[in-house]
Every structure is written in C-alpha cells, then in structure tokens.
C-alpha cells in the first residue's frame, strides 16, 4: 500500500468502492427542520435550534504528566489550541498522542499538570454541562428508555418535566429517532445509540460538544452514514465541536481545522486548515483538495514533511 497512496488512480478506485454501494441517507426528518440557521423562529417547542451563544475555547501551554510505577510519563506537552463559535475542529493523532487525555482535560474530568483551559475566559476546574461529551462507548443509561436518556441531562439540571419532555422529543426528532423513544438502549444498533447520546448532549445545550472517537466502534458503512449525519447536524445547529479521532479521512471530511498531534509526548505538530465548502457529501472524497489534505496529514503522521500543507 505504501507506494500506491500518492497515485490518484489508486485513490479513485478506492473511493469508487466507498461511494458506489452502501451509502444511505440517515432517517432524520430533514424536511421538518431548517438546514441552515432559520430566518424565522422554528415552530418546534421553544427555540432550541440553532446555537446563538458565542463561545471561545482556549488551551494555553497545556501539559499533563501521569505518575506511573515506571516513573512519570509526559502525555501532553505544551499544547496550544483554540476553538471558536460554530467551528468544527478535529485533533488527529496515533495512539499515544494523548488525544483522549486532551479531551478529558477539556471536559474537566482530569486536571492538567501545567497550563490552563478556558471557556469564555473562565478556567475549567471540573466537568460541567457547558462542555458536553460524547464517548466512543455510547454511555447510555441502560435502564432508561431512549426518551429518558435524552431527558436525563435536563433532569440533572432541574428542568421541569414538561419542558424536559418537549426538549427531548425535539432532539430525538433532530437525530431521527422519534420512533424509538420508548425503546431501551439494548434494542438499538451502535449508530442509533450514538445518535441518542448526541441528542442527549444537544438537549443540554452545551457551548461546545466534545467527541472522543465517537464512531470508532462502528462498521465502515454506519460510520460513513454517521459522519454525514454529524456534518449535517453541525450545519443545521451551528454547535461548536471539538472531536478527536485517529481517522484522518474522517477528520478531513468533517472539520474546518485540524490539529495534528505527535506521540510520546503528545505535542501539536501542525495546524491544518481544511479548504473545503461547509456542505459536503461523500463525493468530496474524490476532490483533489480533499485528497491532498488527507495525504498531507498522513505524511505528517508518518513523520515526513508535507509539501501540500506547508506550501
């Protein structure tokens, strides 16, 4: 494979396979909801869409050291990042680049050794609903129905039951799972579970959504469907997203900006701007710009300089 990656003809053949057969549109009701920020308020309960608040996430000289039996291990070293309102930002890196640690620090589930993370100027001191997190393992509450799962964040925040129900129904509609509101998580497929988790996080109206390899456990076809779903969701809601993944293709397809991380310790090797339109479908993978960006990042991860990105 190593020799053939740069050649466009090979790539086209690969992409033809992906694009030809298995793609299907997720079953969310796109006709019921505004695709772009609406010019008039939606007729749905209250006005949960789109995100209107501004947000500024800044990560400043962040380091994280773990003390293990073999001595201290530096997982993250001098990380500087930022995410602005409505941005879709990915961090890509191999295992060992501390990308999960990075997201946990932003979520407030771990504390940094040095440096700081601020959201709208306030230093992150612990977890909170302003930074909603999506885990790879779905983390639905198995005893709650889909509806109750989506309501749960609001319940924790003391929202009344009527409003809770309306909000949950709204976001179940957004992710296309209204029909399954009374199902238990164990009755759903992996992709559906992750959509419930996304609806649950959206219902809490976070300033930013943190996603930790959200589609890592899904099969290739479902993954592609979910990527398209995620992109459309982001376009419609305008929610800010910081997502980590090891899948370069996924990062390029979804995000506007990519931080490429190196491993041992995790540092930011380069910040890459993805020069592609907001509205993307799977066919964009055939574009030269897409392929150049992807191959450039792959080269960075291989330890080469990437002419396509430097120039």
């Amino acid at each position, binding site marked *: *494979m*190593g*020799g*053939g990656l740069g050649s466009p003809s090979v790539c086209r053949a690969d992409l033809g396979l992906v694009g030809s057969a298995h793609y299907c549109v997720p079953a969310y009701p796109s006709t019921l909801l505004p695709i772009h920020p609406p010019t008039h308020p939606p007729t749905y309960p209250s006005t949960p869409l789109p995100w209107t608040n501004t947000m500024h996430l800044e990560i400043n000289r962040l380091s994280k050291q773990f003390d293990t039996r073999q001595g201290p291990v530096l997982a993250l070293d001098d990380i500087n990042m930022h995410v602005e309102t409505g941005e879709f930002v990915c961090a890509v890196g191999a295992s060992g680049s501390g990308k999960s640690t990075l997201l946990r620090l932003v*979520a*407030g*589930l771990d504390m940094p050794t040095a440096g700081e993370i601020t959201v709208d100027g306030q230093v992150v001191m*612990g*977890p*909170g*609903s302003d*930074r*909603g*997190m999506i*885990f790879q*393992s779905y*983390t639905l*509450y*198995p*005893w709650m129905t889909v509806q109750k799962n989506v309501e*749960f*964040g609001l*319940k*924790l*925040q003391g929202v009344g039951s009527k409003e809770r129900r309306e909000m949950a129904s709204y976001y179940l509609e957004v992710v296309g799972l209204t029909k399954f509101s009374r199902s*238990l*998580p*164990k009755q759903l497929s992996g992709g559906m579970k992750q959509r419930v988790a996304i609806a*649950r*996080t959206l219902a*809490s109206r976070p300033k930013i959504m*943190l996603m930790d390899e959200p589609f890592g456990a899904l099969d290739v076809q479902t993954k592609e469907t979910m990527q398209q779903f995620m992109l459309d969701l982001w376009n419609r809601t305008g929610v800010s997203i910081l997502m980590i993944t090891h899948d370069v293709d996924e990062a390029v397809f979804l995000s506007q900006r990519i931080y490429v991380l190196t491993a041992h310790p995790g540092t930011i090797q380069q910040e890459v701007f993805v020069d592609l339109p907001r509205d993307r479908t799977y066919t964009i993978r055939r574009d030269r710009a897409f392929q150049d960006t992807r191959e450039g990042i792959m080269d960075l991860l291989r330890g080469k300089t990437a002419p396509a990105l430097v120039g």
Partner: protein
Amino acid sequence: MGASVPVCSTFGLTPVTPASPSFSTAPRSTQGMKPSVFWRLADDIPKPMSTALMVLSIAVPFGLWWLVASLDLVNDKFLPSPIQVAQALGRLWTDGFLLGDTAASIMRVTVGFGLAALVSVPIGIAMGAFASVRSLLEPISGVVRYMPAPAFIPLLVIYLGLGEAPKIALIFIGTVFFNILMVMDAVKFVPKALLETTYTLGGQRRQALFQVIAPYVVPNIIDTFRINIATSWNLVVVAELVAAENGLGKRIVLAQKFFNTDEIFACLLILGVIGFALDLSLRGLMKATCKWAVD
C-alpha cells in the same frame, strides 16, 4: 510483487527469511467438530428437550424413592413411602401444625433477612462508591463474614434469651456481611464512563450516586438477595433445632423424638418447596422490574 521491497524500506524494516519450521505432512481431517445438541457449550437446547430434562430432574429421584420404599428393601420406619409422607403432611395440616410452623419460620426469615437487607444496601453502596468507606469497613466485614453464624447461637441465647430475638439476630448476622460485600462488588462494576457522562451532563456527585449508581445495581441487589436468602432459610432451621417453641425446625426435632420419619420427610419437602418458591419469586421480581437487565 516488486513493490514490496520499497514498502518495507519505507517503514525501516529489512526483509528477513525465517528458517521454515518442519510441519507434519500427515493428511488432516476436514470434518472438524462433530455436531451435538446435548453437549453444546454455552448454548440453548430445544425447548421440548429442556422441558423433558426438567421433568426428569424431579421424576427420577422421586421414582427411585417410591421404588425403594415399595420394594420393602428398607424398614418403612426409616424410609417412609411417598404415600406415608403425603399422609403425614395431611396430618400436620389438619392438626394446624403445618400452617403455624411454616408461618413462624417464614416470619423469622422475613424479619431477619429484611433487616439485613435494609442495613446492607446503603452500606454496600457506600463501600462500593467511596474508597474511603471501603477502607474503613471492608477488613472488619471480611473477617466477621468468615465466623460461622451458628457459632454465635450460644452467645445470642445468653444475650437475648430464647424468644424470637436470638433467631432473628442469627439470620441477620449470617446474611448481612455477605449482602454488604456482594452489593459493594456490584457497585464497583458500574462503568466509570457512565458517571463521567453524568458529570458532563451537569450532574453532581450526589445525583450520580442516587440516580445512576443506585438504579444500575438494582438487578445485582435482587440477585444478591436471591442467593443469600437461601442462607437465611438454612439458619432459621438451625436456630429452631437448637431452641424454639414452633417452626419447621422445631417440628423436625419433635418428629425425631417420636421416631416419625414420615413427618421429618414432610417437613424437608415443605422446606425445599418454600425455598424454591422464594427463588422463583425473586427471579420474577427481577423480570418484572429490571427488563433492561434480563434477556
């Protein structure tokens, strides 16, 4: 493929040719494992087969008993026939002993085990959730758990006399520590990601404890009770064998005095049936309340 060499060098590897090990050239069977229904590992068997085997499970021992008794191989003073046992059951019923003794035993189990349950659930959850509480209480419950409960009987009689109190205390002592440790273990298996999700949804520690950990371990708690209530059913008979006014254990002691083996058999049968019914009802409770945890 000529391309394979540059690929290797890309990753800094030099191609090596390992010395090939010598394999046996004997012809190999393609038959593989023979199919089986009865011996399938970790798999279901057909429903009719399962039902038939379950009927056999009761019918064979019962049939053997009936056969040995009816062949007069053993003096029926030692081994009463099923019919004699049925008659003894009828006698105990009409004399009112059966109902009274069963009620007395069940009452002791209910109060003793109920108290143990009430105490063990909060303590077990606290020990599972907080490493601090665990360090404080695990060593002592670990030690006391291994002290055989019947060994406490003499002390309990000295402290509490001969009434209901020592019997209830015995059941309590004999089950509370097992309950605590099993509930604690269940809490330790609550996925950490589920708690972290709760925090990122805006939940506080208290909410995570009462609204996530507690409901998550309900099925394990019911299972724990189902296993440990068998112990309390043992202990109530032990207590009644030692000293009691009534109860199924007491009835067995009395029957021994008058050499009424048929009554002993009758009491054993009742003990088994009630225990089995307890087990089934707790399984039913689990199915009814925890659909999410049952297949």
